[in-house]
């Protein structure tokens, strides 16, 4: 029998079997600490009240077996006893200071796995005592990472000093990087300069060095990089200019050097042309305008022209665009438009014939202008529908332009045209990490807007991404330490934080759970029930990219937290969870409907926690009526959201009190009743008529048919 069988038996709640296996092993190996740890692990799962005592007893026996230390610290962590979890290893350091390296390495790896920076610092600090330089840099980095998690300036200073004292002389650029994080500027400069005498700097250290030096030193280093080493880098030009001025060089002198450089190097035009603008941005106004103008003339046929000059806030006299229908003239028109001249749609239409020659994967640059125009006129349902028609027209020429597709999704979502949203989402191929930042375009409120098996599968696929992500990050963090790639590690840790505390992750889990309940889906119920239970939200990091559309996602951090508190109460209806839910609701800024809805939940929950108080029941009897619901326009997704929310509520209330259950069932039947069926259709037909009066072409008619069809498919009536 393998020992893993015991763990598996415990994890799958096969407790009796697990106990029999443990007893067998313990009688055979009474000295083995591992079987004792397994016994405690079993107690822990069985909620045995002696678990803590037993675990501490084992801790005090100083077990060194790696399996034991790993399991024991896991038990402590799961029980919220973080100090004791660390003590598993700290005790060994005290007792066997020269003989516990494998345990320390395990502590270190575990700390990365659970993103515990304090333990990371402690474990690396103890490792560093064995004399190996590698561990000294680990420990230094450990101190730096710890400083990133605290705010107390005094502590930061102390830890930084302690860290810097551990470090030996750096031999690689990565070690040099760790030194730069902990040493004062002068020491770092010295270390870098010494290093430079024998080995080349990598880009990271070059940038660190450039940020630390000034005056004469900065001037000669930037001069060397730009003029001798072909380091054609705009920030270096900026530093070259500022240091030249600092050491008293005249602007005309610097200007001459830049012009000279420009005339001899083919690839450097954009950087040097802007360097001249930069040079005079704090100097003579006439020269500044002159070089802005030169820049504009040189680059107005390139799409980047406006964005390059934008930070300088320059007022330019624009040159007129040639007559020829060419990409260059189109780009020139686009730049002029952004500087304030011209009409978006006129530019779009004028050069449209260029799309005939372009490859499918290139985008027609004028799309950007008309998308912005469309998205700035979407106040009314009519404008939104017009917007959809216009954007769909753009896709004829540019089916793959992601900006068009992303905005289309937003406009479709206004009417909850689910299949069209999905098809646009598929077109842009959101993959891997993009799920975290762009997944919301399709999955925003999906559990309310399309509670179906297909949506469940979509969300579960997204959830899987997060599972692999977590594993990938901790494995690679260990690798990065092992390989000494220190200048990537602080950012790996930041990235890890963003992923494990990601809004979209939490939102995916809760939406899966909601659909499981809505559809009575049995396939994942056990797994997600325990996932929801185990999620404790302290901090949420919102990684959603909302720069791609004017319309922002509807789900908010505040509401997500409330939804979790609600589900936590439903899974564990106790006073603590009630208070948490109530506290989140107090002072929240929800929509009128949501405020009303969560008040229903609050009263429902109070019936559980304070059964003697009849006011909650009376409130529900009074309010659980179709007439009390303040519906939004039936045309909109808000209406569907409200409808599903009420179904969710009724389903929940059904399992409470008998009388409330009866009312809920009645309301649910009414919600499904056919009276509601045609409201959306009728409103949409009205809207179609209005549109046809202003836009009556075959294309518009066909598009409207497609949209009606999509609306019918997504109708709330189909969600039985």
């Amino acid at each position, binding site marked *: 029998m393998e020992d893993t069988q015991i763990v598996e038996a415990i994890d799958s709640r096969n407790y009796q079997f697990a106990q029999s296996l443990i007893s067998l092993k313990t009688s055979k190996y009474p000295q083995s600490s591992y079987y004792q740890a397994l016994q405690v692990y079993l107690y822990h799962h069985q909620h045995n009240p002696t678990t803590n005592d037993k675990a501490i007893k084992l801790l005090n026996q100083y077990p060194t077996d790696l399996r034991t230390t790993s399991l024991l610290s896991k038990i402590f962590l799961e029980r919220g006893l973080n100090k004791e979890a660390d003590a598993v290893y700290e005790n060994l350091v005290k007792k066997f200071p020269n003989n516990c390296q494998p345990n320390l390495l395990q502590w270190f790896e575990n700390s990365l796995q659970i993103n515990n920076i304090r333990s990371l610092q402690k474990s690396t600090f103890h490792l560093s005592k064995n004399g190996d330089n590698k561990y000294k840099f680990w420990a230094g980095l450990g101190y730096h990472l710890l400083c990133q998690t605290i705010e107390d300036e005094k502590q930061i200073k102390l830890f930084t000093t302690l860290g810097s004292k551990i470090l030996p002389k750096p031999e690689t650029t990565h070690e040099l990087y760790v030194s730069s994080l902990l040493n004062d500027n002068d020491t770092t400069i010295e270390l870098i300069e010494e290093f430079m005498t024998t080995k*080349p700097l*990598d*880009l*990271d250290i070059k*940038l660190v060095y450039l940020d630390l030096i000034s005056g004469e030193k900065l001037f000669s280093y930037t001069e060397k990089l730009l003029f001798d*080493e*072909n*380091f*054609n*880098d*705009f*920030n*270096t*030009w900026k530093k070259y200019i500022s240091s030249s001025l600092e050491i008293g060089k005249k602007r005309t002198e610097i200007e001459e050097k830049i012009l000279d450089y420009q005339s001899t190097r083919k*690839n450097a035009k*954009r*950087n040097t042309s*802007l*360097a001249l603008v930069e040079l005079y941005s704090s100097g003579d106004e006439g020269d500044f305008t002159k070089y802005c103008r030169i820049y504009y003339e040189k680059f107005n046929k*390139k*799409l*980047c022209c406006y*964005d*390059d000059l*934008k930070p300088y806030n320059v007022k330019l006299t624009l040159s007129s665009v040639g007559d020829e229908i060419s990409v260059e003239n189109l780009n020139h028109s686009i730049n002029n438009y952004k500087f304030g001249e011209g009409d978006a749609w006129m530019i779009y239409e004028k050069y449209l014939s260029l799309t005939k020659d372009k490859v*499918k*994967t*290139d*985008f027609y*640059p004028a799309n950007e202008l008309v998308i912005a125009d469309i998205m700035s006129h979407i106040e009314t349902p009519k404008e939104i529908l017009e917007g959809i028609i216009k954007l769909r027209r753009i896709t004829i020429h540019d089916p*793959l332009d*992601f900006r068009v597709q992303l905005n289309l999704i937003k406009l479709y979502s206004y009417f909850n045209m689910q299949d069209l949203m999905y098809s646009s989402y598929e077109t*842009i*191929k959101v*993959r*891997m*990490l*993009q799920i*975290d*930042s*762009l997944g919301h375009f399709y999955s925003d409120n999906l559990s309310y807007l399309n509670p179906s098996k297909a949506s469940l599968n979509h969300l579960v696929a997204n959830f899987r991404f997060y599972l*692999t*992500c977590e594993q*990938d*990050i901790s494995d*690679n963090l260990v*690798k*990065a330490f092992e*390989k000494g*790639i220190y*200048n*990537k590690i602080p*950012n*790996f840790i930041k*990235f890890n934080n*963003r992923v494990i505390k990601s809004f979209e992750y939490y939102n995916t889990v809760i939406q899966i759970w909601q659909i499981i309940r809505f559809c009575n889906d049995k396939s994942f119920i056990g797994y997600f029930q325990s996932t929801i239970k185990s999620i404790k939200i302290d901090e949420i990091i919102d*990684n959603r*990219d909302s*720069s*791609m559309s004017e319309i922002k996602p509807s789900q908010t951090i505040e509401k997500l937290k409330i939804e979790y508190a609600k589900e936590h109460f439903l899974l564990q209806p106790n006073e603590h969870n009630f208070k948490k839910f109530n506290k989140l609701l107090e002072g929240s800024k929800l929509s009128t409907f949501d405020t009303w809805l969560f008040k229903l939940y609050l009263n429902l929950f109070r019936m559980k926690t304070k059964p003697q108080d009849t006011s909650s029941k009376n409130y529900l009897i009074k309010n659980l009526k179709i007439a009390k619901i303040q519906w939004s326009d039936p045309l909109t997704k808000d209406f569907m959201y409200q409808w599903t929310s009420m179904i969710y509520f009724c389903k929940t209330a059904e399992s409470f009190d008998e009388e409330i259950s009866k009312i809920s069932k009645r309301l649910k039947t009414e919600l499904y009743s056919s009276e509601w069926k045609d409201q959306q259709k009728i409103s949409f037909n009205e809207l179609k008529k209005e549109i046809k009066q202003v836009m009556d072409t075959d294309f518009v008619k066909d598009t409207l048919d497609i949209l009606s069809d999509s609306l019918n498919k997504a109708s709330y009536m189909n969600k039985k």
Partner: protein
Amino acid sequence: MTSYQPFQLEDLYNINSINLDPLTENYTLEFYFDYLIRWPSLFFKSVSHDTITGYMIAKNEGKLSKLEWHTHISAVTIDYRYRRLGLASDICLFLENIVNKDPDNTLFIDLFVRVQNLLAIQLYEKLGYSVYRRVVGYYGKTLPEDRNQIDDEIDGFDMRKKLPADKEGKTVRENGHKVYALPQEIVF
């Protein structure tokens, strides 16, 4: 204007407008980790006023004794708003400037490109790359058996540029587009 900076993992959150390009691949996290950890200096980005405008992912591999020690460009891509400025060319030169000396000092840089991607081929030719061999069926779904069954749809060119470490020019050849190889024969 362009500045160069090392790519950091979190940058993956700021390259949506680059990676939504239909010809730009989105890789697994493991892929990005691998390059960041094994070849950290060959994975960098170009930046304009804090906007990431493009990036380069490359690696060094092969044995020097077999004349295979080289730099391989795995991905180079530019935001659509910053194209036709010479940025891809500049990024490639930036890479060259790193690997053509110690500690890398590779013999050549290479990359694979679709035979039909004339645009990219032109870009690399202007930078001094030439075709080393035509890899028959490189982008196909199945492994081909016959090296003479060329097909523009799925064949790729292995393009190379020799670096100063290859003093005698042994790693490149003329008329490489007439040399056909099968994907299974390509070690690097």
